[in-house]
């Protein structure tokens, strides 16, 4: 067996996971780029490649159309479009990757926001000939709004600008000027590539000796994400109460959930919100044994040192650093429904494991995501619009700002009649 596959047995257990999102339209080389990453990492199988080669040929496509790999829906193939976020998977000996690949045209904002909500990193493709354009602005705005901490500006089609260092630097400059208006992106990396020719995608380019940085794949494999999560403010939304009613675990009352931030240890002083009751963590349980400490995003069960009335939707937080508790919330929201939001509206609201009702009181402004300008003279939120709202919930939420915690700072709105998810919001 080759070295590579024996690595599959040993090293695989220690690998971590990087979730990233890509966005772009048909002609910016995104499919080519992803195809290259997948094929070079052997995530595309021979039978899959043969099938899409055959289909591409039948359709008269000039190149093998890699979108066919995940555009599995009949309507997508018939219309030659991608309808939805496509998730793709690959692994190298260093890391496992999940790509949320979002289409550039239909339902653009909705898909990009959905893909970005779980991503650690965003790849924004820029055509070296065109530089920073509206689309770059949209991608970056959404990456920033959803607080993706690492952004890669992949300056593609370098082969078409004679591998020019000056052009690359010009684009960096343009982007930095624009990004200064965004404010939140922590880590921006610029990489000059040619997805078509493979330069700086997996292997370092020989055509651009002036570029000293890593190839795109090497960057994806090594970018440090261990400190991205919030490990300061301990948050534990209670999902389910485990009561075995068995002889062995007669009095066991475990609060099950997935840690949404910070670190919990036995002996920690905690507060149960919104009731405000205080207790100490007795133990942290898993089927494999008790843990000395637990942190996001682990799923565990917790027991406390005293009996308190706790149910699903409550939040256990550490006493020295509690979350906000309240019913009046300000948020940025992305609207997903054909039915516009006009001023006020009543919805079901889902926040961590809690469901309550909410009334939108006001749309304060909308954002033009192409120019980043505020729109204050049209306050109707239509499909794919992003804006700022204020709302009041029927019962109190235990929340943080999205800026400090993605889990306790986000919620969705659900239509009370159709049950559809109509909006995704980030608490300001």
């Amino acid at each position: 067996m080759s070295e590579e596959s024996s690595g599959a047995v040993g090293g695989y257990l220690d690998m971590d996971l990087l979730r990233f999102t890509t966005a772009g339209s048909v002609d910016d080389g995104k499919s080519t780029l992803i195809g290259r990453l997948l094929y070079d990492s052997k995530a595309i199988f021979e039978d899959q490649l043969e099938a899409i080669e055959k289909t591409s040929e039948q359709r008269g496509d000039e190149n093998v159309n890699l979108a066919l790999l995940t555009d599995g829906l009949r309507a997508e193939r018939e219309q030659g479009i991608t309808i939805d976020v496509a998730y793709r998977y690959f692994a190298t000996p260093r890391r496992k990757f999940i790509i949320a690949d979002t289409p550039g045209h239909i339902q653009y904002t909705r898909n990009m926001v959905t893909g970005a909500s779980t991503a650690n990193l965003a790849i924004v493709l820029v055509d070296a000939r065109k530089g920073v354009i509206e689309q770059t602005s949209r991608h970056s705005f959404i990456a920033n709004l959803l607080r993706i901490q690492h952004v890669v500006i992949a300056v593609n089609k370098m082969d078409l600008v004679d591998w020019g260092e000056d052009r690359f630097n010009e684009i960096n400059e343009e982007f930095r000027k624009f990004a200064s208006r965004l404010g939140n992106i922590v880590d921006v990396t610029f990489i000059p590539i040619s997805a078509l020719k493979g330069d700086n995608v997996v292997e370092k380019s020989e055509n651009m000796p002036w570029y000293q940085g890593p190839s795109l794949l090497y960057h994806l494999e090594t970018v440090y994400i261990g400190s991205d999560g919030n490990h300061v403010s301990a948050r534990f939304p209670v999902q389910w109460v485990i009561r075995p009613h068995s002889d062995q675990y007669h009095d066991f009352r475990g609060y099950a959930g997935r840690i949404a931030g910070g670190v919990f240890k036995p002996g920690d002083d905690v507060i149960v919100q919104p009731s405000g009751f205080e207790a100490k963590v007795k133990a942290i349980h898993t089927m494999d044994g008790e843990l000395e400490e637990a942190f996001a995003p682990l799923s565990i069960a917790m027991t406390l040192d005293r009996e308190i009335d706790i149910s699903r939707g409550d939040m256990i937080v550490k006493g020295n650093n509690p979350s906000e508790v309240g019913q009046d919330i300000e948020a940025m929201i992305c609207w997903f429904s054909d039915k516009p939001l006009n001023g006020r509206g009543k919805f079901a609201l889902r926040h961590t494991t809690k469901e309550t009702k909410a009334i939108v009181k006001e749309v304060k402004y909308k954002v033009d995501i192409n120019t980043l300008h505020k729109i204050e003279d049209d306050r109707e939120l239509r499909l794919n619009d992003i804006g700022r709202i204020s709302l009041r919930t029927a019962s109190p939420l235990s929340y943080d700002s999205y800026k400090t915690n993605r889990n306790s700072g986000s919620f969705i709105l659900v239509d009370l009649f159709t049950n559809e998810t109509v909006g995704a919001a980030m608490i300001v």
Partner: protein
Amino acid sequence: MPDYTVTHLNQIESEAIFVLRETAAQFERPVLLFSGGKDSIVMTHLARKAFWPARIPFPLLHIDTGHNFRETIEYRDALVKELGANLIVGSVQKAIDEGRVVEEKGLNASRNALQIQTLLDALEEGQYDAALGGGRRDEEKARAKERFFSHRDEFGQWDPKNQRPELWNIFNGRMSPGEHFRVFPLSNWTEMDVWQYLKREGVDLPSLYFAHEREIVVRNGAILAVSEFVQPREGEALEKRQIRFRTMGDATITGAVESDASNMDMIIEEVAAARETERGNRADDKRSESAMEDRKKQGYF
């Protein structure tokens, strides 16, 4: 500064446990679809972890085509006993006998499509509002766009163009009476993840997954195990080969691969080196390019 990096297996395990608990919490009557295949074995293992030390708070449902490998049923019964779980069997044979479905005719007849009606009947009969399945997005392209919480209308149908967006880890399981959800906690797992996880967790698997010598016939390029359901036809030679199965389904359509991988490590090596997808041996997917989508729309797993 302490390192809070979480390995990818722990991340997808935690995610799957979260989804299992959400399902128990958001629905009145969930059920876990159990086929005896490795994905559903991972699912029961995760369900056990999610609710430990309590029992799994929902029953297992097996849609039985009647064309089973003996090993699958033995494994199933032993597992159910160990879990102390409630097993419900939806029988395709019974549905045929009662005239609710009509068996396919012809040389390549399969009971695969009949499972759909049997499943929908079983869900309706038990009034289950959420059916947990082991489907993964990397398996097949129609599954690549499946949600964790996948809404089904009152006819059990999937509307892929009109799915609810899923953001962060917030899942919307609200529905109208008569509708139900399919829930896929393993959405983000790959075949490799499943094997690695089974190995790490020390989970026992049916012997069919490991290389063994068996009588087979080669039919339409697929290696089929000879059994009471599959007999050599004219022109087909009965052979003995060293084989194993990569997926577990109806014995009449599940193809084997030639292999000498007789333990977990060897299987993982084999998966790492494989150049064909695992469903490549499933005759049911090869009927047309959108065979899987068509079945899913009607209510398939």
